[in-house]
């Protein structure tokens, strides 16, 4: 029994250490919680976390980042309910699945917590759940713009590498791209999974089976990085028309090398940073911008890569 007590005491100590650290780091003033739908493995959200921390520091407010570890949206609903119960001044959340999340978000709004929808969702949905505003990139429109751009460059067929098949909002990008090209989506979208080597091999397999493919669209660094490797290994790098959503170290390098034509930057920095600024000023001075904020799309090409390169993966 004594050894058990010792273990218990040890565990309590180990468990308590980060809690104490978290307590000391707490800033004065308002408290805002950002809830995302991203699993722990999604590196893209690192930018969001950095921007959130920066905004918290600059505005002198306390900020917290929460996500469902496996990316399960039903778990995310519980996290929003939890955030509401902890009584923050505001919640910044994605609206990855309206059916699941609208209830918890409405409950948060109704219990007096101000909500801003960021990243996933639409302005209409944000208004419907009673959120103050929507900050993000309308996904379908971004895909459409990309498709129209590719069409002007002479593309007629494409492969869309979807690593988040479970998020229907992201799949809209592929649909938009197809519509922009004026072709049917058909079987152009593949479910690549999230494992880098699986993605690489699936892209290779698809290109082997469909050698006439004009263009590749990837939906983020998770699918873009392995796709770059795949193209390098089969010699199609620089030859095939390659566009991607979002940025990351490897994507920036590939744009520089001419492997990737353009990257669509939805500027996640603004999606995390602006809501904190907006909420803080709203709570301190009662001022609120009158409209939703489009954080993107911005096309990033080989011109003007410097700042992007400097902060890729950190703030860009």
């Amino acid at each position: 029994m004594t050894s058990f007590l010792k273990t218990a005491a040890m565990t309590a100590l180990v468990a308590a250490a980060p809690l104490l650290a978290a307590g000391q780091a707490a800033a004065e003033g308002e408290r805002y919680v950002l809830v995302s739908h991203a699993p722990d493995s999604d590196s893209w959200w690192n930018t969001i976390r950095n921007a959130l921390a920066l905004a918290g520091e600059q505005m002198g407010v306390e900020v917290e980042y929460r996500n469902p570890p496996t990316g399960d949206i039903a778990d995310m609903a519980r996290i929003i309910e939890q955030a509401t119960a902890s009584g923050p001044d505001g919640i910044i959340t994605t609206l990855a699945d309206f059916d699941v999340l609208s209830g918890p978000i409405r409950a948060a709004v109704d219990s007096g917590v101000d909500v801003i929808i960021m990243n996933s969702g639409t302005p209409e949905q944000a208004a419907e759940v009673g959120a103050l505003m929507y900050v993000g990139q309308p996904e379908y429109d971004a895909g459409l713009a990309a498709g129209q751009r590719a069409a002007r460059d002479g593309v007629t067929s494409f492969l869309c590498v979807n690593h988040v098949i479970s998020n229907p909002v992201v799949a809209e990008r592929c649909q938009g791209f197809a519509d922009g090209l004026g072709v049917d989506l058909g079987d152009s979208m593949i479910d690549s999974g999230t494992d880098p080597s699986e993605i690489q091999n699936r892209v290779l397999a698809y290109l082997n089976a469909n050698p006439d493919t004009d263009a590749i669209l990837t939906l983020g660094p998770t699918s873009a990085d392995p796709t770059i490797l795949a193209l390098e290994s089969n010699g199609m790098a620089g030859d095939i028309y390659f566009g991607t959503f979002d940025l990351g170290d490897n994507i920036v390098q590939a744009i520089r090398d001419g492997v990737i034509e353009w990257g669509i930057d939805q500027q996640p920095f603004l999606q995390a940073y602006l809501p904190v600024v907006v909420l803080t000023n709203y709570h301190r001075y009662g001022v609120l911008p009158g409209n939703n904020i489009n954080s993107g799309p911005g096309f990033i090409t080989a011109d003007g890569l410097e700042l992007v390169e400097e902060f890729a993966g950190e703030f860009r």
Partner: protein
Amino acid sequence: MSDTATGDERVKEMSGFRKALIRPELGGIVGTVAVFTFFLLFAADSGMFNAQGIMNWSTVSAQFMIIAVGACMLMIAGEFDLSVGSMIGFAGMSIAIFSVTLGWPVWMAILTTFALCISIGALNGYIVIKTGLPSFIVTLAALFILRGFTIFFPQTIERRTIIGGIDDAAEGDWLAPIFGGEIGQPIFVWLADLGLIDVFERGNRAGEPVIDGIPMLIVWAIALVIFGHIVLTRTRFGNWIFAAGGDAQAARYVGVPVNRVKILMFMFTAFCATVFATCQVMEFGSAGADRGVLKEFEAIIAVVIGGALLTGGYGSVVGAALGALIFGVVQQGLFFAGVESSLFRVFLGVILLFAVILNTYIRRIITGER
């Protein structure tokens, strides 16, 4: 206690302390007390113990409980089911496809899904028994197969992986409220009138209590725990479960229908997963292809924290329920305590390790190893 034991010379005398120690629930009870003490100290003023907070971790714990009961009884019977998480996704999607895409009445979709999933559970068990392969491998295959279908069917039929609109379909259905409804609303209205719980400040529900009622999810969890506990400790079939898991061959010699017991336990695990899925789908009104990812391990963790042995033949449903409670409270409590969310898995690992060490210690006491 020792007085009654002296009546039969075949029963070895045991001190009350030792008796308490070898109860499988012990780890769970100690853990529950420790966890609540911990969060009362560190997160008391964070909203964790107001009405919304309590409902939050109770709901999460109840989710774990539902799948832990099935996993626990199967583990006691000496087998694993790794397909629980995929089964949750599959069952939810099945209800969505039957009710929304095919337009069946929701009660029929639910009953068909239960029949379908329990048959898959039975098939899992049948393959394990017939081939003699470890259930670990067979259900691992089921994990991939079911998850694959869960993505394939909606993708093929509806061109998307989340199917919504189930709440509209379930409007006025007689069976749906048994999974997605809530009970005890008047109690919460009364509590709110007394000022014991908060009310919504604005919106079209202003003035209503922040908690509608107790979700059926929690009712199901408690009912399943009671059912499992009674079956396991008060019936002959319960003894068969222990026997089948302790030593299958020895159990066969004394006439226990080991194969039937194991297959039934696989079916029960599938049933629990389907209850989980149905409650979730009815509450949220949509089914997604990624629902339930990794839930099989969460079920196993809850069961192990609750004192069951991975080798079978030993464990308790009450212990598993406490394990689920600990798991749920820790998971949500860490958020309340403001712990960096990337450290969440570290805590989970520490708690799991701690529980397993404690259980090994208990096993040594039982078997008399030194």
